[in-house]
């Protein structure tokens, strides 16, 4: 067998099998990056949560002790308990962005002069960095000159130090977060409303459906894809809340506005010391909460895929 005879045969092997090989060649770079920076680190964090490590020296295996410590923090109503409780408040209240977004979308779904510009401007808050949103709302709440207290003053109320009061601080930050999130949901619904079938609306009108009944029975079912995406991005957004807390309060006053995402950062990377293992344990808890939702999203997507 000569080399010359061998070469075309190899080429034809590749040629014959290229439909099997090609997807892997196309996947390789993206998959490699994603594995190294996303998938493997998830498992590394799980592993790390069983260690005590300051980020520099040798890591010491401590078994489940980090989780036991978290458990005691929970029992003692300590930082971990507060963070988890705040996460829950975030999750629930953040969902208000969905109906609020729908409301604004319905309000703007008209064809009058300049409406396109109005829609764009209403969407504005979402495009701005959360860091800037945080600053804007810190000033909005400011007890000496903030707009909020100016308004309260008109009614003879206040002054109210929203970000300095343990009772209000988390709600104040969530309200700031709702601003861009509502804008996001609004744009999802505006796009969805564009695709609503006019014939069904006409049919509904003939059947005497109006206002809220029409919305509930005819419009909302057609907006389901938009609602699903709005739900996904809002849940993710609520559990990812970090920027606003970091900018507006740094978890304060007295740690009362912490959420798990912020608490983890604080434990692992700040003046409170570099407790990487403990931070990883908190991250694992946050991950497991998120996993419930991820599983649900994937399951919905899987059903859709089967449907095709």
């Amino acid at each position: 067998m000569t080399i010359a005879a061998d070469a075309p045969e190899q080429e034809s092997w590749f040629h014959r099998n290229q439909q099997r090989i090609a997807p892997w060649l196309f996947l390789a770079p993206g998959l490699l990056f994603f594995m190294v920076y996303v998938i493997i680190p998830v498992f590394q964090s799980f592993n790390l949560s069983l260690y005590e490590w300051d980020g520099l020296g040798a890591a010491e295996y401590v078994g489940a002790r980090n989780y036991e410590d978290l458990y005691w923090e929970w029992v003692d109503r300590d930082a971990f308990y507060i963070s988890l409780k705040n996460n829950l408040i975030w999750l629930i209240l953040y969902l208000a962005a969905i109906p609020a977004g729908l409301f604004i979308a319905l309000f703007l779904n008209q064809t009058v002069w300049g409406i396109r510009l109005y829609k764009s401007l209403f969407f504005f808050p979402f495009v701005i960095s959360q860091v800037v949103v945080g600053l804007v709302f810190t000033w909005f709440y400011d007890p000496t000159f903030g707009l909020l207290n100016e308004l309260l003053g008109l009614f003879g109320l206040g002054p109210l130090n929203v970000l300095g009061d343990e009772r209000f601080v988390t709600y104040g930050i969530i309200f700031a977060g709702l601003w861009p999130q509502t804008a996001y949901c609004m744009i999802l619904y505006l796009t969805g409303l564009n695709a609503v079938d006019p014939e069904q609306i006409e049919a509904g009108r003939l059947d005497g459906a109006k206002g809220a009944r029409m919305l509930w029975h005819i419009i909302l079912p057609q907006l389901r894809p938009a609602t699903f995406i709005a739900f996904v991005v809002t849940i993710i957004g609520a559990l990812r809340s970090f920027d606003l807390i970091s900018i507006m309060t740094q978890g304060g006053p007295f740690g009362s506005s912490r959420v798990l995402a912020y608490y983890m950062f604080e434990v692992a990377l700040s003046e409170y010391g570099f407790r990487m293992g403990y931070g990883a344990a908190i991250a694992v808890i946050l991950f497991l909460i998120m996993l419930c939702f991820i599983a649900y999203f994937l399951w919905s997507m899987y059903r859709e895929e089967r449907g095709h």
Partner: protein
Amino acid sequence: MFPKPIEKQPRATQITYQAMLPLALLLWLGPLLAVALFSVKPAADFTNANYWGMPSSFEGAFNYGQVFFNSDMPRYLLNSFLITVPTVIGAVALSCMTGFALGIYKFRSNLWIFFMFVAGNFVPFQILMVPVRDLTLQLGLYNTKTGLVLFHIAFQTGFCTLFMRNFIRALPFELIEAARVEGISELRIFWYVVLPLMKPAIAALSVLIFTFIWNDYFWAVVLTQGAESQPVTAGITSFNAQFRAAYQLMSAGSIVAALPPVAMFFLMQKHFIAGLTLGAVK
């Protein structure tokens, strides 16, 4: 169309609606307009507690001049561009390929790999934080723009793959089959048949990823430290520390920092919205 078109309503309703639009907008953007007002005020207005009145003099040029010529802001803005643009190119390039692989070919693990990308895209950042920071340190890329770019490319590939794959799925498959019958290699099919059809998806993703990365704060704090590599989101906190209580400068700085993605949005609105809806809401 729902709700009932306003043209078909009585005249009074029409006028009320037209009047309510600007009022609602003013209310909606109130906090932002306040910052814009602050940014053109002179410092004296704040010491005199003239927070909400008219500016006693118009100092916009001076304030913005300070931001551009007397602070690290230009440096941070440049860093942001140097981080954002390579990330956009990298993530879009990688996901064109992964999206093509997952959208066109049928193989057993296809759906699982796709779901892995989707799931990875949703994980909380904190579970990646320590290992990614450690990896970046080991690669000698801590506190460099490259370190940040590499991570961003990898993470955004998840979202981009979701988007690209769904987009490619919606393309007419007959085109590819016809090309195969002609004996065109898979690589050429990707390059000459599919890629030209993906232009709208590439545009949408580019705009969207630009905004995401520009606005990233968490990873900027975790992976970088000083003015030489920090992007503007992280830089603005140092900027604010430098000009503590100089509200007019902090406002001007915030507006400058927020402007590039806003400009991007207004220039590429159609693509932006197509991207945000994940292409799922037609």
